[in-house]
């Protein structure tokens, strides 16, 4: 009867994208990672 997909470690109700913290197809929890960020050139002294 399939799998309860809510138990695969993905926060399916999240309003944010899942891909930004998608650790791997084998991971049971999102990745703890520095989200991607971009600093404009003018911030650098």
């Amino acid at each position: 009867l399939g799998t309860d997909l809510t138990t695969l470690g993905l926060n399916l109700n999240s309003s944010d994208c899942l891909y930004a913290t998608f650790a791997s197809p084998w991971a049971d929890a999102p990745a703890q990672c520095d989200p991607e960020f971009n600093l404009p050139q003018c911030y650098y002294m």
Partner: protein
Amino acid sequence: HVLQMLNLSLLNMPEPSDSERPKTYVPRNPYPTPSSFPQTPASVFDAPAVFEKFDVDTLFFIFYYQQGTYQQYLAARELKKQSWRYHKKYLTWFQRHEEPKVTADEYEQGTYVYFDYETGWCQRIKSEFTFEYGFLE
């Protein structure tokens, strides 16, 4: 045969550490501090929420002294949330001290507070200032 290969592949199943980024926090000019001092920023500084608790002076310190890091990104974001605006020519942050006297398409004019990071490391008032939107980050 393929299943046998797959079983071997399962033996070498990827692990979370395989795709973690090597923590490349490298201090620019490392000062020989006692090893009991933390050698890398604590992970608490990766949480955007903690930046709401810092006072403005701390945010400016992180912005100017943690260049190129995620923390600088978070400090800038919090400053913007507190209505500070970064000026790309003067490389510092401005905040309206009162409603601008003049507002046009290309600029606004009025009295502002700005952060002097070079001489006084303090906030200063600037009246009759024209903030050209072309310099707004």
